[in-house]
């Protein structure tokens, strides 16, 4: 074999771009990317500091310990109401997401149905929250006669939580080594046993962190709840036909009201929200990392 000795004489002249010009472009990209990252972190920090500071300087013990609305009284009803709604949402979304994910990962399931289920789950995550709110109002509140209530609000939240949880749980299930599942089947376990002895215990950290994230997202939701949960100056008296207060509502209406006190209540609620939401996100990351 012969290498064409093309370098001598007949080869085209090859000049190089100036390295310094290329380096300058690289330096600019480097600098700009740091500036942008720094600016975004600064904005994030300023939002946090502003909200925490405004909340901390206006929150009082009385505000946290009494019922009320945005013009008078406290936000205890909204704090409790938020967690009641979130709890209700979990109640409606955990069973279908857990069992649905078991169906999707089960090798004996119908592949077409599994694929379709995943596709619909994906699409459902993208439905705008206000459309879910409108649907909840038209169908749950009016047509099914639930009234503005804990159940209607919880169901509206669960429409958002369900696809989210289902995806996370499915991923946690898929992260389990295949041999473990095959071994369990080989030992004669049926699907119920494999689910309860392999899938659930192995994926429990993933599931838990997913639930925490779903809670953190739904605690900050508003649009689904405006016309499904309503608002209440006290705690709801039942599951149906009794309106529920929640924190995001207080933030939204409080800041749009003219009195200083309603602004204070809005700031305090925003502080509670941002603390609980980021707290939950951090805890969820922590438990995943510790595993």
């Amino acid at each position, binding site marked *: 074999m012969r290498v064409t000795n093309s370098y001598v004489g007949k080869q085209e002249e090859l000049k190089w771009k100036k390295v310094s010009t290329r380096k300058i472009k690289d330096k600019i990209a*480097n600098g700009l990317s*740091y500036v942008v990252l720094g600016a975004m972190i600064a904005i994030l920090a300023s939002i946090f500091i502003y909200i925490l500071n405004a909340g901390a300087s206006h929150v009082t013990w009385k505000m946290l310990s009494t019922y009320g609305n945005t013009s008078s009284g406290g936000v205890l009803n909204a704090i409790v109401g938020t967690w009641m709604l979130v709890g209700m949402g979990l109640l409606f979304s955990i069973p279908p997401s857990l069992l649905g994910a078991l169906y999707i990962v089960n090798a004996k399931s119908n592949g077409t149905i599994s694929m379709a289920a995943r596709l619909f789950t994906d*699409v459902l995550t993208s439905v705008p929250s206000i459309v879910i709110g409108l*649907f909840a109002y038209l169908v749950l509140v009016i047509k099914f006669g639930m009234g503005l209530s804990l159940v209607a609000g919880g169901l509206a939240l669960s429409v958002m939580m369900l696809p989210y949880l289902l995806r996370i749980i499915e991923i946690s299930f898929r992260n389990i080594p295949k041999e473990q599942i095959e071994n369990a089947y080989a030992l004669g376990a049926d*699907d*119920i046993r494999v689910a309860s002895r392999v899938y659930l215990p192995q994926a429990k950290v993933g599931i838990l962190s997913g639930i925490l994230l779903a809670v953190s997202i739904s605690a900050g939701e508003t649009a689904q709840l405006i016309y499904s949960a309503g608002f209440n100056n006290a705690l709801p008296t039942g599951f149906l036909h009794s309106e529920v207060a929640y924190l995001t509502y207080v933030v939204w209406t409080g800041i749009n009201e003219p009195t200083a006190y309603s602004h204070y209540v809005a700031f305090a609620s925003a502080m509670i929200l941002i603390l609980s939401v980021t707290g939950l996100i951090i805890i969820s990351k922590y438990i995943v990392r510790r595993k």
Partner: protein
Amino acid sequence: MKASNRVFNFFTFLMAIVPAVVLISIIVFVLYYSIPSIRYNSWSFFTTYLWNPGFQFQAPIMKHGVLAPAGSAFGLDLFLIGTLSTSALAILIAFPVSFLISLNVELYLPSKIKKVMISMIELFAGIPSVVYGLWGIVVLEPLLFRNVEPWMAQHLTFIPGFGGEIYSGAGLIASGIILSFMIIPIVTSIIVNSFDTVPMDVKDGLFSLGATKWEVGKYLMTSYSRASTVGGTLLGLGRALGETMAVLMVSGAVTNILPHNFYSAINTMAAAIASLLDSAFTDSTGMNLAALAELAIVLMLISLTVSLIGRKIAGRGVLRGYESD
């Protein structure tokens, strides 16, 4: 197979189709409730920007076989313009920012603090939208109104739409900025994930040919990560199109007045549904409610299509972080 196992499997099947049942019922019910509006407004729903609830205390009128308040007319143009323009501005800000952040954490930032920085950026997605709205009202709007927009209106008059009066700070610019904060973490995490999936050998290969980091980043962006970037941006866009509360709080939420310039108050489809639903209850003919349902259908159609295309383009792999982390 034991009966109990069969029952269990059937039950898991039922639960797996819940998302499909929910999605289909949302579409079917909202569409069903919008039928009166579709009949009443016909094509004018798409050709006018006026949204007039009509006179509640006059006798309702009958048109195309449906009852509606006298003088009522419903058109989505104003809201559609608002939705598209706020989302477009959000993407215009979010895309370069996300690209530069991804470039930074992948190539320039010491790898030790990469994870911390990504987690910080992801926190943007965790802030509830009403908190963004609150911050927008008390911090961003005054800042825009007092400092930024006067300067823009004075110095950027050569760009059409940047001259003229300033309103309150609420409007397209405030909405676009806040929406961009909400979608930057989505777009960033998808781009970062796709950069991470590029084999180490290929990155080393690029560097071995003498490429600078910027050249490597630019190349990865236009080859390996092109699909994920486009898909991720579309997913972010889908999110921005449907965002309600923050935009409701900082857009000015106008009806019936088209924006004159970039500083005008605007409104979006999602925000309009949230703000107009209250008064729609009082309409005994139900036409106002039906018109909002029709608005919801159009909004859902746009945002689902955009998200679905984004998902398809990006592929499932790189969406992992965005969905589970």
